[in-house]
Protein backbone atom coordinates (compact mmCIF):
# COMPACT_ATOMS: atom_id res chain seq x y z
CA UNK A 1 0.00 0.00 0.00
CA UNK A 2 1.23 3.48 -0.89
CA UNK A 3 2.21 5.58 2.11
CA UNK A 4 1.45 9.30 1.96
CA UNK A 5 4.52 11.51 2.29
CA UNK A 6 3.17 14.05 4.74
CA UNK A 7 0.06 12.39 6.08
CA UNK A 8 -2.27 14.81 7.81
CA UNK A 9 -4.68 12.01 8.58
CA UNK A 10 -3.69 8.43 9.25
CA UNK A 11 -6.19 5.71 10.01
CA UNK A 12 -4.79 2.32 10.85
CA UNK A 13 -6.63 -0.89 11.60
CA UNK A 14 -9.95 0.83 12.29
CA UNK A 15 -12.69 -1.58 13.34
CA UNK A 16 -16.23 -0.81 14.38
CA UNK A 17 -18.99 -3.09 15.59
CA UNK A 18 -22.68 -2.47 16.11
CA UNK A 19 -24.12 -5.29 18.10
CA UNK A 20 -23.19 -8.30 16.06
CA UNK A 21 -22.45 -6.46 12.86
CA UNK A 22 -18.95 -5.52 11.88
CA UNK A 23 -19.30 -2.22 10.08
CA UNK A 24 -15.62 -1.49 9.64
CA UNK A 25 -12.93 -4.13 9.50
CA UNK A 26 -9.36 -3.19 10.09
CA UNK A 27 -9.55 -0.26 7.72
CA UNK A 28 -6.49 1.69 6.67
CA UNK A 29 -6.63 5.11 5.09
CA UNK A 30 -4.22 7.99 4.80
CA UNK A 31 -4.68 11.51 3.49
CA UNK A 32 -1.77 13.63 2.32
CA UNK A 33 -1.65 17.14 3.63
CA UNK A 34 -2.75 19.87 1.26
CA UNK A 35 -4.55 17.55 -1.12
CA UNK A 36 -8.09 16.59 -1.99
CA UNK A 37 -8.85 12.94 -1.36
CA UNK A 38 -12.01 10.92 -1.75
CA UNK A 39 -13.57 7.85 -0.25
CA UNK A 40 -15.93 5.92 -2.46
CA UNK A 41 -17.70 2.61 -2.33
CA UNK A 42 -21.09 1.01 -2.73
CA UNK A 43 -23.88 1.83 -0.30
CA UNK A 44 -23.35 0.33 3.08
CA UNK A 45 -19.62 0.07 2.60
CA UNK A 46 -19.06 2.02 5.79
CA UNK A 47 -18.07 5.41 4.42
CA UNK A 48 -20.18 7.57 6.71
CA UNK A 49 -19.20 5.34 9.63
CA UNK A 50 -15.59 6.28 8.96
CA UNK A 51 -16.54 9.94 9.19
CA UNK A 52 -18.44 9.31 12.39
CA UNK A 53 -15.41 7.60 13.89
CA UNK A 54 -13.18 10.44 12.73
CA UNK A 55 -15.39 13.04 14.35
CA UNK A 56 -15.73 11.13 17.59
CA UNK A 57 -19.40 10.25 17.40
CA UNK A 58 -18.72 6.54 17.10
CA UNK A 59 -16.21 4.77 19.27
CA UNK A 60 -14.14 2.34 17.23
CA UNK A 61 -13.57 -1.05 18.78
CA UNK A 62 -10.02 -1.17 17.51
CA UNK A 63 -7.56 0.88 15.57
CA UNK A 64 -5.94 4.27 15.64
CA UNK A 65 -6.68 7.62 14.10
CA UNK A 66 -4.01 10.27 13.93
CA UNK A 67 -4.44 13.88 12.93
CA UNK A 68 -1.10 15.57 12.28
CA UNK A 69 0.54 12.77 14.20
CA UNK A 70 -1.69 13.16 17.24
CA UNK A 71 -4.11 10.42 18.25
CA UNK A 72 -7.71 11.51 18.16
CA UNK A 73 -9.64 8.26 18.44
CA UNK A 74 -11.63 8.19 21.64
CA UNK A 75 -11.71 11.94 22.06
CA UNK A 76 -14.97 13.84 22.44
CA UNK A 77 -16.36 15.36 19.25
CA UNK A 78 -15.95 18.96 20.31
CA UNK A 79 -12.29 18.40 21.14
CA UNK A 80 -11.65 16.82 17.78
CA UNK A 81 -13.16 19.83 16.07
CA UNK A 82 -10.99 22.11 18.13
CA UNK A 83 -7.96 20.13 17.04
CA UNK A 84 -8.77 21.01 13.45
CA UNK A 85 -11.16 18.48 11.99
CA UNK A 86 -14.53 19.71 10.72
CA UNK A 87 -17.32 18.03 8.83
CA UNK A 88 -20.47 18.60 6.86
CA UNK A 89 -23.39 16.21 7.03
CA UNK A 90 -24.91 14.01 4.38
CA UNK A 91 -28.42 15.12 5.27
CA UNK A 92 -27.65 18.72 6.18
CA UNK A 93 -27.81 19.46 9.85
CA UNK A 94 -28.21 23.17 9.95
CA UNK A 95 -29.77 25.02 12.87
CA UNK A 96 -32.88 25.47 10.82
CA UNK A 97 -34.64 28.20 12.77
CA UNK A 98 -31.54 30.38 13.02
CA UNK A 99 -30.21 32.73 10.38
CA UNK A 100 -27.47 31.76 7.97
CA UNK A 101 -25.09 34.11 9.75
CA UNK A 102 -25.89 32.61 13.14
CA UNK A 103 -25.31 29.16 11.70
CA UNK A 104 -21.88 30.16 10.51
CA UNK A 105 -21.11 31.81 13.83
CA UNK A 106 -21.47 28.44 15.53
CA UNK A 107 -18.26 27.49 13.82
CA UNK A 108 -16.51 30.44 15.38
CA UNK A 109 -17.38 29.30 18.88
CA UNK A 110 -14.43 27.00 19.28
CA UNK A 111 -11.98 29.65 18.13
CA UNK A 112 -13.10 32.26 20.65
CA UNK A 113 -13.05 32.40 24.39
CA UNK A 114 -15.41 35.00 25.84
CA UNK A 115 -17.51 33.33 28.51
CA UNK A 116 -20.64 34.14 30.50
CA UNK A 117 -18.82 36.48 32.84
CA UNK A 118 -17.34 38.40 29.92
CA UNK A 119 -20.80 38.69 28.46
CA UNK A 120 -22.52 39.92 31.60
CA UNK A 121 -19.80 42.44 32.37
CA UNK A 122 -19.43 43.56 28.79
CA UNK A 123 -15.66 43.21 28.88
CA UNK A 124 -13.35 44.33 26.13
CA UNK A 125 -12.70 40.72 25.16
CA UNK A 126 -16.41 40.15 24.72
CA UNK A 127 -16.87 43.19 22.52
CA UNK A 128 -13.79 42.46 20.50
CA UNK A 129 -14.77 38.87 19.85
CA UNK A 130 -18.38 39.71 19.00
CA UNK A 131 -17.15 42.07 16.34
CA UNK A 132 -14.66 39.51 15.03
CA UNK A 133 -17.32 36.77 14.95
CA UNK A 134 -19.78 38.93 13.04
CA UNK A 135 -17.10 39.82 10.51
CA UNK A 136 -15.98 36.20 10.20
CA UNK A 137 -19.53 35.05 9.50
CA UNK A 138 -19.82 37.61 6.73
CA UNK A 139 -16.47 36.60 5.30
CA UNK A 140 -17.23 32.88 5.21
CA UNK A 141 -20.62 33.41 3.66
CA UNK A 142 -18.95 35.53 1.00
CA UNK A 143 -16.31 32.83 0.48
CA UNK A 144 -18.99 30.28 -0.34
CA UNK A 145 -20.78 32.82 -2.47
CA UNK A 146 -23.95 33.61 -0.53
CA UNK A 147 -23.08 36.78 1.30
CA UNK A 148 -26.57 38.21 0.85
CA UNK A 149 -28.26 35.32 2.61
CA UNK A 150 -26.73 36.30 5.95
CA UNK A 151 -29.88 37.45 7.69
CA UNK A 152 -32.23 34.88 6.22
CA UNK A 153 -33.52 32.03 8.32
CA UNK A 154 -31.74 28.86 7.22
CA UNK A 155 -34.90 26.87 6.69
CA UNK A 156 -36.13 29.38 4.10
CA UNK A 157 -33.09 29.17 1.86
CA UNK A 158 -33.03 27.11 -1.31
CA UNK A 159 -31.33 23.75 -0.94
CA UNK A 160 -28.16 24.72 -2.74
CA UNK A 161 -27.74 27.75 -0.50
CA UNK A 162 -28.38 25.69 2.61
CA UNK A 163 -25.55 23.42 1.56
CA UNK A 164 -23.28 26.40 1.22
CA UNK A 165 -24.22 27.61 4.68
CA UNK A 166 -23.16 24.25 6.02
CA UNK A 167 -19.81 24.49 4.25
CA UNK A 168 -19.29 28.02 5.55
CA UNK A 169 -20.12 26.83 9.04
CA UNK A 170 -17.57 24.04 8.87
CA UNK A 171 -14.92 26.37 7.45
CA UNK A 172 -15.54 28.83 10.25
CA UNK A 173 -14.02 26.33 12.67
CA UNK A 174 -10.74 26.95 10.83
CA UNK A 175 -10.01 23.27 10.24
CA UNK A 176 -6.83 21.68 9.02
CA UNK A 177 -8.90 18.84 7.57
CA UNK A 178 -12.40 19.27 6.16
CA UNK A 179 -14.66 16.23 5.79
CA UNK A 180 -17.39 16.60 3.19
CA UNK A 181 -20.10 13.94 3.34
CA UNK A 182 -21.69 13.63 -0.11
CA UNK A 183 -21.44 17.35 -0.87
CA UNK A 184 -22.82 16.95 -4.38
CA UNK A 185 -26.05 15.23 -3.39
CA UNK A 186 -29.02 17.11 -4.74
CA UNK A 187 -27.02 19.65 -6.70
CA UNK A 188 -27.61 20.47 -10.33
CA UNK A 189 -24.85 20.68 -12.93
CA UNK A 190 -24.11 24.36 -12.40
CA UNK A 191 -23.98 23.93 -8.65
CA UNK A 192 -21.69 20.94 -9.04
CA UNK A 193 -19.28 23.03 -11.07
CA UNK A 194 -19.35 25.63 -8.31
CA UNK A 195 -18.66 22.90 -5.80
CA UNK A 196 -15.57 21.78 -7.72
CA UNK A 197 -14.32 25.34 -7.79
CA UNK A 198 -15.08 25.78 -4.10
CA UNK A 199 -13.26 22.62 -3.09
CA UNK A 200 -10.22 23.72 -5.05
CA UNK A 201 -10.34 27.17 -3.48
CA UNK A 202 -10.50 25.63 -0.03
CA UNK A 203 -7.32 23.74 -0.81
CA UNK A 204 -5.49 26.51 -2.65
CA UNK A 205 -6.55 29.67 -0.81
CA UNK A 206 -6.99 28.29 2.66
CA UNK A 207 -4.50 25.45 2.64
CA UNK A 208 -7.13 23.12 4.05
CA UNK A 209 -6.92 19.41 3.28
CA UNK A 210 -10.20 17.98 2.03
CA UNK A 211 -11.57 14.46 2.32
CA UNK A 212 -14.83 13.70 0.56
CA UNK A 213 -17.30 10.89 0.51
CA UNK A 214 -19.02 10.93 -2.81
CA UNK A 215 -21.10 8.86 -5.20
CA UNK A 216 -20.74 11.27 -8.09
CA UNK A 217 -17.84 9.66 -9.96
CA UNK A 218 -17.38 12.56 -12.29
CA UNK A 219 -16.77 14.89 -9.40
CA UNK A 220 -14.54 12.45 -7.63
CA UNK A 221 -12.32 11.85 -10.62
CA UNK A 222 -12.16 15.54 -11.34
CA UNK A 223 -10.94 16.84 -8.00
CA UNK A 224 -9.20 13.99 -6.22
CA UNK A 225 -5.53 13.38 -6.08
CA UNK A 226 -6.05 10.13 -4.20
CA UNK A 227 -9.05 7.83 -3.95
CA UNK A 228 -9.75 5.10 -1.40
CA UNK A 229 -12.37 2.53 -2.23
CA UNK A 230 -14.26 0.80 0.54
CA UNK A 231 -16.43 -2.24 0.47
CA UNK A 232 -17.84 -4.20 3.37
CA UNK A 233 -15.98 -2.08 5.83
CA UNK A 234 -12.49 -2.37 4.46
CA UNK A 235 -10.25 -0.81 1.88
CA UNK A 236 -10.27 -2.78 -1.34
CA UNK A 237 -8.30 -0.41 -3.51
CA UNK A 238 -6.66 2.97 -3.47
CA UNK A 239 -4.56 5.24 -5.57
CA UNK A 240 -4.85 7.87 -8.24
CA UNK A 241 -8.13 8.24 -10.13
CA UNK A 242 -6.76 6.44 -13.21
CA UNK A 243 -5.54 3.50 -11.17
CA UNK A 244 -8.78 3.11 -9.25
CA UNK A 245 -10.98 3.45 -12.31
CA UNK A 246 -9.38 0.42 -13.86
CA UNK A 247 -9.06 -1.73 -10.77
CA UNK A 248 -10.99 -4.97 -11.27
CA UNK A 249 -11.89 -5.25 -7.60
CA UNK A 250 -13.52 -1.85 -7.68
CA UNK A 251 -15.48 -2.66 -10.79
CA UNK A 252 -16.63 -5.91 -9.28
CA UNK A 253 -17.67 -4.23 -6.07
CA UNK A 254 -19.84 -1.72 -7.86
CA UNK A 255 -21.30 -4.02 -10.45
CA UNK A 256 -22.00 -7.20 -8.63
CA UNK A 257 -21.76 -7.46 -4.92
CA UNK A 258 -22.78 -11.13 -4.91
CA UNK A 259 -19.82 -12.11 -7.02
CA UNK A 260 -17.09 -9.92 -5.53
CA UNK A 261 -14.06 -11.84 -4.39
CA UNK A 262 -12.63 -9.51 -1.75
Amino acid at each position, binding site marked *: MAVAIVALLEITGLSLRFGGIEVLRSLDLAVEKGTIASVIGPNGAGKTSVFNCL*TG*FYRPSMGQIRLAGRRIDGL*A*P*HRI*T*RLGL*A*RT*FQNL*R*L*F*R*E*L*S*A*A*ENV*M*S*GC*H*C*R*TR*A*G*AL*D*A*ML*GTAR*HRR*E*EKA*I*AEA*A*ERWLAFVGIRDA*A*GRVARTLPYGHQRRVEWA*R*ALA*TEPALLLLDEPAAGLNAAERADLVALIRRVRDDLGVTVLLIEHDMGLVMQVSKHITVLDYGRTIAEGSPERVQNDPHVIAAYLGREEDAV
Partner: protein
Amino acid sequence: MNAAGEASTRGRPVRTLWRTAGAAALLGVVATVPFFANDYYLEVLSEAWFYVLLCLGLNIVVGYAGLLDLGYAAFFAVGAYTAGLVTLRLGQSFWLSLPLAVAAAALAGVIIGGPTLRLRSDYLAIVTLGFGEMVRITVRNLAITGGASGLVGISRPELFGYRITSIGDYYYIFLSLALLAVVASHRLEQSRIGRAWKYVRSDEDAARAMGINHAAVKLAAYVLGAIFAAIGGCFYAAKMTAISPETFSFNQSLLILLGVVLGGRGKIPGVILGAMAVVILPELFRDIGSMRMLVFAISLLLIMLFRPAGIWPERWR
Protein backbone atom coordinates in the same frame (compact mmCIF):
# COMPACT_ATOMS: atom_id res chain seq x y z
CA MET B 1 -24.37 44.51 10.11
CA ASN B 2 -24.85 43.50 13.70
CA ALA B 3 -24.19 40.06 15.09
CA ALA B 4 -27.39 38.49 13.82
CA GLY B 5 -26.71 39.63 10.30
CA GLU B 6 -29.60 42.06 10.36
CA ALA B 7 -29.52 45.52 8.88
CA SER B 8 -28.53 48.02 11.55
CA THR B 9 -30.78 50.76 12.80
CA ARG B 10 -28.26 53.43 12.11
CA GLY B 11 -30.68 55.12 9.81
CA ARG B 12 -33.45 55.21 12.46
CA PRO B 13 -32.23 57.34 15.36
CA VAL B 14 -35.69 58.63 16.18
CA ARG B 15 -37.13 55.23 17.02
CA THR B 16 -34.35 54.28 19.38
CA LEU B 17 -34.66 57.70 20.99
CA TRP B 18 -38.32 57.10 21.71
CA ARG B 19 -37.52 53.70 23.09
CA THR B 20 -34.88 54.96 25.49
CA ALA B 21 -37.13 57.83 26.57
CA GLY B 22 -39.96 55.43 27.22
CA ALA B 23 -37.73 53.11 29.21
CA ALA B 24 -36.35 56.00 31.24
CA ALA B 25 -39.85 57.25 32.04
CA LEU B 26 -40.96 53.80 33.10
CA LEU B 27 -37.90 53.49 35.25
CA GLY B 28 -38.63 56.86 36.80
CA VAL B 29 -42.16 55.85 37.72
CA VAL B 30 -41.09 52.53 39.06
CA ALA B 31 -38.33 54.05 41.16
CA THR B 32 -40.56 56.56 42.84
CA VAL B 33 -43.33 54.15 43.80
CA PRO B 34 -42.30 54.02 47.47
CA PHE B 35 -43.02 57.69 47.78
CA PHE B 36 -46.67 57.51 47.03
CA ALA B 37 -47.72 53.91 47.57
CA ASN B 38 -48.83 52.40 50.84
CA ASP B 39 -47.20 49.40 52.47
CA TYR B 40 -49.52 46.84 50.92
CA TYR B 41 -48.76 47.91 47.35
CA LEU B 42 -45.07 48.10 48.17
CA GLU B 43 -45.11 44.54 49.47
CA VAL B 44 -46.84 43.22 46.40
CA LEU B 45 -44.56 45.10 44.03
CA SER B 46 -41.47 44.03 45.96
CA GLU B 47 -42.55 40.47 45.59
CA ALA B 48 -43.20 41.06 41.92
CA TRP B 49 -39.64 42.32 41.35
CA PHE B 50 -38.38 39.38 43.33
CA TYR B 51 -40.20 36.99 41.04
CA VAL B 52 -38.86 38.85 38.02
CA LEU B 53 -35.37 38.01 39.30
CA LEU B 54 -36.25 34.35 39.90
CA CYS B 55 -38.08 33.94 36.62
CA LEU B 56 -35.24 35.49 34.65
CA GLY B 57 -32.90 33.06 36.35
CA LEU B 58 -35.05 30.09 35.46
CA ASN B 59 -35.42 31.53 31.98
CA ILE B 60 -31.72 31.01 31.46
CA VAL B 61 -32.13 27.31 32.16
CA VAL B 62 -35.48 26.73 30.50
CA GLY B 63 -35.74 29.47 27.91
CA TYR B 64 -32.16 29.83 26.74
CA ALA B 65 -30.71 26.39 27.29
CA GLY B 66 -33.96 24.52 26.86
CA LEU B 67 -33.60 22.42 30.02
CA LEU B 68 -36.88 21.87 31.81
CA ASP B 69 -35.85 22.32 35.44
CA LEU B 70 -38.70 21.56 37.81
CA GLY B 71 -36.64 21.85 40.96
CA TYR B 72 -35.49 25.44 40.62
CA ALA B 73 -36.72 26.30 44.11
CA ALA B 74 -33.80 24.26 45.42
CA PHE B 75 -31.38 27.01 44.35
CA PHE B 76 -33.61 29.61 45.95
CA ALA B 77 -33.42 27.51 49.13
CA VAL B 78 -29.64 27.34 48.90
CA GLY B 79 -29.42 31.12 48.93
CA ALA B 80 -31.95 31.63 51.70
CA TYR B 81 -30.50 28.98 53.97
CA THR B 82 -26.95 30.17 53.37
CA ALA B 83 -27.97 33.61 54.55
CA GLY B 84 -29.76 32.07 57.51
CA LEU B 85 -26.84 29.87 58.46
CA VAL B 86 -24.23 32.56 58.03
CA THR B 87 -26.07 35.04 60.23
CA LEU B 88 -27.57 32.68 62.79
CA ARG B 89 -25.14 29.82 63.12
CA LEU B 90 -21.89 31.56 62.22
CA GLY B 91 -22.85 34.93 63.62
CA GLN B 92 -21.32 36.70 60.64
CA SER B 93 -22.50 39.70 58.70
CA PHE B 94 -25.19 39.19 56.11
CA TRP B 95 -22.93 40.38 53.34
CA LEU B 96 -20.70 37.33 53.75
CA SER B 97 -23.60 35.13 52.78
CA LEU B 98 -23.69 36.56 49.26
CA PRO B 99 -20.39 35.19 47.99
CA LEU B 100 -20.95 31.98 49.96
CA ALA B 101 -24.40 31.57 48.48
CA VAL B 102 -23.04 32.13 44.99
CA ALA B 103 -20.41 29.46 45.59
CA ALA B 104 -22.94 27.05 47.08
CA ALA B 105 -25.33 27.68 44.22
CA ALA B 106 -22.63 27.08 41.64
CA LEU B 107 -21.80 23.82 43.38
CA ALA B 108 -25.46 22.84 43.54
CA GLY B 109 -25.81 23.68 39.86
CA VAL B 110 -22.97 21.35 39.00
CA ILE B 111 -24.29 18.57 41.25
CA ILE B 112 -27.78 18.81 39.83
CA GLY B 113 -26.66 19.47 36.28
CA GLY B 114 -23.97 16.81 36.14
CA PRO B 115 -26.04 13.64 36.11
CA THR B 116 -28.74 15.16 33.98
CA LEU B 117 -26.63 16.23 31.03
CA ARG B 118 -27.26 13.18 28.95
CA LEU B 119 -30.92 12.83 29.80
CA ARG B 120 -33.80 13.43 27.45
CA SER B 121 -36.05 16.32 28.30
CA ASP B 122 -38.76 14.37 30.07
CA TYR B 123 -36.34 12.44 32.25
CA LEU B 124 -34.54 15.66 32.99
CA ALA B 125 -37.75 17.26 34.19
CA ILE B 126 -38.52 14.54 36.66
CA VAL B 127 -34.98 14.22 37.93
CA THR B 128 -34.75 17.92 38.61
CA LEU B 129 -38.09 17.66 40.39
CA GLY B 130 -36.62 14.88 42.47
CA PHE B 131 -33.59 16.99 43.29
CA GLY B 132 -35.80 19.85 44.36
CA GLU B 133 -37.65 17.56 46.69
CA MET B 134 -34.39 16.14 48.04
CA VAL B 135 -33.19 19.60 48.96
CA ARG B 136 -36.46 20.45 50.66
CA ILE B 137 -36.52 17.19 52.61
CA THR B 138 -32.90 17.64 53.60
CA VAL B 139 -33.39 21.10 55.07
CA ARG B 140 -36.51 19.83 56.75
CA ASN B 141 -34.73 16.94 58.40
CA LEU B 142 -31.48 18.50 59.51
CA ALA B 143 -31.25 20.22 62.87
CA ILE B 144 -28.73 22.75 61.65
CA THR B 145 -31.25 24.16 59.23
CA GLY B 146 -33.90 24.33 61.88
CA GLY B 147 -35.86 21.26 60.89
CA ALA B 148 -39.47 21.64 59.93
CA SER B 149 -39.84 25.02 61.58
CA GLY B 150 -36.94 26.46 59.68
CA LEU B 151 -34.73 29.33 60.72
CA VAL B 152 -36.05 32.27 62.66
CA GLY B 153 -34.53 35.53 63.69
CA ILE B 154 -32.26 36.14 60.74
CA SER B 155 -30.66 39.48 61.33
CA ARG B 156 -31.14 42.35 58.99
CA PRO B 157 -28.16 43.48 56.95
CA GLU B 158 -26.41 46.77 57.66
CA LEU B 159 -24.91 49.10 55.12
CA PHE B 160 -22.54 51.77 56.46
CA GLY B 161 -24.41 51.75 59.74
CA TYR B 162 -27.85 51.91 58.17
CA ARG B 163 -30.04 48.92 58.96
CA ILE B 164 -32.01 47.75 55.98
CA THR B 165 -35.40 47.11 57.49
CA SER B 166 -38.24 49.00 55.87
CA ILE B 167 -40.47 47.76 53.13
CA GLY B 168 -39.34 50.64 50.97
CA ASP B 169 -35.71 49.55 51.41
CA TYR B 170 -36.50 46.05 50.22
CA TYR B 171 -38.54 47.42 47.35
CA TYR B 172 -35.42 49.16 46.06
CA ILE B 173 -33.26 46.12 46.68
CA PHE B 174 -35.48 43.80 44.71
CA LEU B 175 -36.03 46.40 42.01
CA SER B 176 -32.27 46.78 41.61
CA LEU B 177 -31.79 43.03 41.55
CA ALA B 178 -34.49 42.71 38.92
CA LEU B 179 -32.86 45.41 36.79
CA LEU B 180 -29.47 43.77 37.12
CA ALA B 181 -31.07 40.48 36.14
CA VAL B 182 -32.60 42.09 33.07
CA VAL B 183 -29.28 43.54 31.98
CA ALA B 184 -27.38 40.33 32.70
CA SER B 185 -29.98 38.20 30.88
CA HIS B 186 -29.99 40.46 27.89
CA ARG B 187 -26.23 40.42 27.61
CA LEU B 188 -26.11 36.66 28.00
CA GLU B 189 -28.70 36.21 25.30
CA GLN B 190 -26.70 38.27 22.83
CA SER B 191 -23.39 36.66 23.54
CA ARG B 192 -21.26 33.72 22.50
CA ILE B 193 -22.70 31.57 25.28
CA GLY B 194 -26.23 32.68 24.45
CA ARG B 195 -25.72 31.51 20.91
CA ALA B 196 -24.15 28.29 22.12
CA TRP B 197 -27.32 27.58 24.10
CA LYS B 198 -29.36 28.15 20.97
CA TYR B 199 -27.20 25.75 18.99
CA VAL B 200 -27.28 23.03 21.61
CA ARG B 201 -31.02 23.45 21.96
CA SER B 202 -31.56 23.28 18.25
CA ASP B 203 -29.39 20.26 17.44
CA GLU B 204 -27.06 19.05 20.13
CA ASP B 205 -25.00 16.73 17.95
CA ALA B 206 -24.51 19.30 15.23
CA ALA B 207 -23.40 21.73 17.90
CA ARG B 208 -20.87 19.25 19.22
CA ALA B 209 -19.61 18.68 15.70
CA MET B 210 -18.98 22.43 15.49
CA GLY B 211 -16.70 22.25 18.50
CA ILE B 212 -19.16 23.26 21.19
CA ASN B 213 -18.84 21.43 24.48
CA HIS B 214 -22.51 20.75 25.12
CA ALA B 215 -21.94 19.57 28.65
CA ALA B 216 -20.06 22.70 29.68
CA VAL B 217 -22.66 24.88 28.01
CA LYS B 218 -25.56 23.21 29.81
CA LEU B 219 -23.77 23.28 33.12
CA ALA B 220 -23.14 26.98 32.64
CA ALA B 221 -26.87 27.49 32.28
CA TYR B 222 -27.61 25.63 35.51
CA VAL B 223 -24.92 27.48 37.40
CA LEU B 224 -25.99 30.91 36.18
CA GLY B 225 -29.64 30.20 36.90
CA ALA B 226 -28.72 28.89 40.32
CA ILE B 227 -26.75 32.03 41.10
CA PHE B 228 -29.67 34.30 40.22
CA ALA B 229 -31.95 32.33 42.53
CA ALA B 230 -29.42 32.10 45.32
CA ILE B 231 -28.79 35.84 45.42
CA GLY B 232 -32.52 36.39 45.48
CA GLY B 233 -32.79 33.82 48.23
CA CYS B 234 -30.27 35.65 50.42
CA PHE B 235 -32.17 38.90 50.27
CA TYR B 236 -35.45 37.10 50.69
CA ALA B 237 -34.16 35.64 53.95
CA ALA B 238 -33.03 39.07 55.06
CA LYS B 239 -36.40 40.57 54.31
CA MET B 240 -38.51 37.85 55.90
CA THR B 241 -36.05 37.18 58.77
CA ALA B 242 -37.55 33.71 58.89
CA ILE B 243 -37.56 30.88 56.38
CA SER B 244 -39.08 27.43 56.43
CA PRO B 245 -38.78 24.40 54.16
CA GLU B 246 -42.33 24.72 52.84
CA THR B 247 -41.42 27.90 50.98
CA PHE B 248 -39.15 25.85 48.75
CA SER B 249 -41.57 23.17 47.66
CA PHE B 250 -42.41 21.96 44.21
CA ASN B 251 -45.24 24.45 44.23
CA GLN B 252 -42.71 27.22 44.37
CA SER B 253 -40.73 25.78 41.47
CA LEU B 254 -43.99 25.54 39.60
CA LEU B 255 -44.90 29.17 40.27
CA ILE B 256 -41.55 30.32 38.97
CA LEU B 257 -41.93 28.15 35.89
CA LEU B 258 -45.40 29.60 35.39
CA GLY B 259 -43.93 33.07 35.35
CA VAL B 260 -41.47 32.03 32.66
CA VAL B 261 -44.04 30.32 30.51
CA LEU B 262 -47.17 32.42 31.02
CA GLY B 263 -45.55 35.52 29.62
CA GLY B 264 -45.81 33.64 26.38
CA ARG B 265 -42.20 33.56 25.37
CA GLY B 266 -38.73 32.74 26.59
CA LYS B 267 -37.87 36.37 25.88
CA ILE B 268 -37.13 38.88 28.58
CA PRO B 269 -40.21 41.15 28.26
CA GLY B 270 -42.46 38.08 28.27
CA VAL B 271 -40.80 36.69 31.36
CA ILE B 272 -41.12 40.00 33.20
CA LEU B 273 -44.81 40.09 32.35
CA GLY B 274 -45.29 36.52 33.40
CA ALA B 275 -43.51 37.03 36.70
CA MET B 276 -45.59 40.09 37.49
CA ALA B 277 -48.77 38.26 36.50
CA VAL B 278 -47.97 35.38 38.83
CA VAL B 279 -47.67 37.79 41.75
CA ILE B 280 -50.15 40.52 40.96
CA LEU B 281 -53.08 38.63 39.47
CA PRO B 282 -53.84 36.61 42.61
CA GLU B 283 -53.82 39.90 44.56
CA LEU B 284 -56.16 41.54 42.11
CA PHE B 285 -58.57 38.64 42.23
CA ARG B 286 -58.38 37.92 45.93
CA ASP B 287 -61.78 36.33 46.01
CA ILE B 288 -60.63 33.41 43.97
CA GLY B 289 -57.82 33.09 46.50
CA SER B 290 -57.33 29.39 46.93
CA MET B 291 -58.46 28.75 43.41
CA ARG B 292 -55.64 30.79 41.95
CA MET B 293 -53.50 27.76 41.15
CA LEU B 294 -56.46 26.17 39.46
CA VAL B 295 -56.94 29.27 37.36
CA PHE B 296 -53.24 29.29 36.52
CA ALA B 297 -53.40 25.64 35.57
CA ILE B 298 -56.28 26.25 33.20
CA SER B 299 -54.63 29.33 31.72
CA LEU B 300 -51.41 27.41 31.22
CA LEU B 301 -53.26 24.59 29.51
CA LEU B 302 -55.10 27.01 27.24
CA ILE B 303 -51.89 28.82 26.36
CA MET B 304 -50.13 25.57 25.49
CA LEU B 305 -53.01 24.40 23.35
CA PHE B 306 -53.80 27.54 21.46
CA ARG B 307 -50.58 29.41 21.15
CA PRO B 308 -49.43 28.64 17.63
CA ALA B 309 -46.08 27.01 17.03
CA GLY B 310 -45.52 26.60 20.73
CA ILE B 311 -43.41 28.89 22.78
CA TRP B 312 -39.98 27.97 21.55
CA PRO B 313 -40.19 27.42 17.82
CA GLU B 314 -36.86 25.67 17.48
CA ARG B 315 -36.97 21.95 17.04
CA TRP B 316 -36.08 19.74 19.99
CA ARG B 317 -34.88 16.20 20.27
